[in-house]
């Protein structure tokens, strides 16, 4: 009998963490699996923890790493803060860094590796600038210092357009054309389920508030190693954007991922893992060399 036809539970545990963020209590959804070095994973704008479903189920990864991911407020199964309905949501660099540090502290993670994609790939640069000693290593997926708006963001949140389908339509081409069909549409489903104005509010950080072009050269990779992985089909953060980032940050390491787009861990997990594993091995080797 084919074991995959049998019902089974994944090794993933999901829990709700109550903690103070941005001056008020929040209910934050956290998933984790595995044991070992903490690997904290940050989802993209307008999506949620489900993007890391494959990593949370990869036996080889879980044997060495405690893979953890959480939904930002308003995303996935995390509640918005009280009063959310009274103002427009705009994610800022300050708030994003504070949220990550607060969750890291609440979970008592010691020197976690933080890996973020898209807005998560940008914010790891802020972490590298502000508090590198807190982290064992930083991995930026689809990471660039800045993205110029290339469409009118108003289309993402207006009453005469179906928000979820439009958000999915905006990002669908960011997925590599060769991505497995099931993973492609799972990735888009997450976007279709986003709350009103959430993707647009995240992009305030990505395209307006979070411009790091004048700061990234101050990143000191001796204080915290920085690895970059970028898919060749991404036209939001292009390979050229990441190449420029690598050029500006001495000691950073960029890997370009063939056939992959903007959502590597979600759109084509197996292919992405083939690129991620060597990076994790390099991080482990450098830890041994530094006697961490």
């Amino acid at each position, binding site marked *: 009998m084919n074991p995959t036809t049998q019902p089974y539970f994944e090794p993933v545990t999901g829990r709700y963490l109550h903690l103070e963020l941005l001056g008020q209590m929040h209910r934050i959804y956290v998933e984790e699996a595995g044991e070992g070095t903490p690997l904290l994973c940050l989802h993209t704008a307008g999506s949620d923890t489900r993007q890391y479903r494959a990593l949370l189920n990869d036996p080889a990864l879980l044997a060495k790493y405690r893979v953890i991911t959480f939904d930002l407020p308003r995303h996935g199964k995390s509640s918005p803060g009280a009063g959310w309905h009274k103002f427009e949501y705009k994610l800022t660099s300050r708030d994003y860094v504070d949220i990550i540090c607060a969750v890291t502290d609440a979970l008592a993670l010691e020197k976690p590796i933080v890996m973020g994609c898209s807005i998560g790939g940008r914010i790891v640069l802020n972490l590298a600038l502000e508090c590198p000693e807190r982290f064992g290593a930083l991995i930026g997926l689809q990471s660039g210092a800045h993205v110029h708006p290339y469409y009118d963001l108003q289309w993402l949140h207006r009453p005469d357009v179906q928000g979820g389908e*439009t958000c999915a339509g905006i990002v669908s081409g960011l997925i590599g054309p060769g991505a497995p069909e099931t993973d492609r549409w799972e990735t888009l489903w997450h976007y279709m389920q986003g709350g009103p104005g959430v993707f647009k509010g995240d992009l305030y950080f990505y395209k307006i508030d979070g411009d790091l072009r004048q700061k990234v050269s101050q990143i000191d990779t001796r204080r915290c190693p920085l690895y970059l992985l970028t898919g060749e089909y991404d036209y939001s953060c292009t390979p050229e954007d990441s190449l420029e980032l690598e050029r500006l940050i001495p000691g950073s390491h960029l890997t370009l991922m063939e056939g992959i787009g903007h959502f590597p861990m979600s759109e084509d997990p197996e292919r992405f893992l083939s690129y991620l594993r060597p990076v994790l091995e390099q991080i482990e080797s450098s830890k041994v060399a530094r006697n961490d």
Partner: protein
Amino acid sequence: MADPNIQQLAERVNSDAWLVHRGRYLDVRFLVASGTDQYVIEIHKGRIDSIEHGPFVMPRWTFAMKAEPDVWEKFCVSHPAPRFHDLMALIRFKTLLLEGDQHPFMANLLYFKDVFACLRPLEISL
């Protein structure tokens, strides 16, 4: 844009019942330009009613999509290269100009992406 591709667009779209269903609230006339070559496509309830080939005198359209022939050629292959694989990618790199009232296009973005994917050769399983 190769003429044979666009001439068979109506048949490809209209024979896809799910695609037509997804466009069921869409009624629009839009212009597609490949260099100086122009087409006006009329969609009614998700079905392509007509594809008129220019040149036109005083054409009416709600929005227009204008690109050079080499851009459409790169877009229309089975396995397009990065930057030519998606309508929004073309817009991002300014090789496709979207003009006029964008509302019908943006409100039906996934539909239009799949309509234009019909310009690509059919994948044939042997």
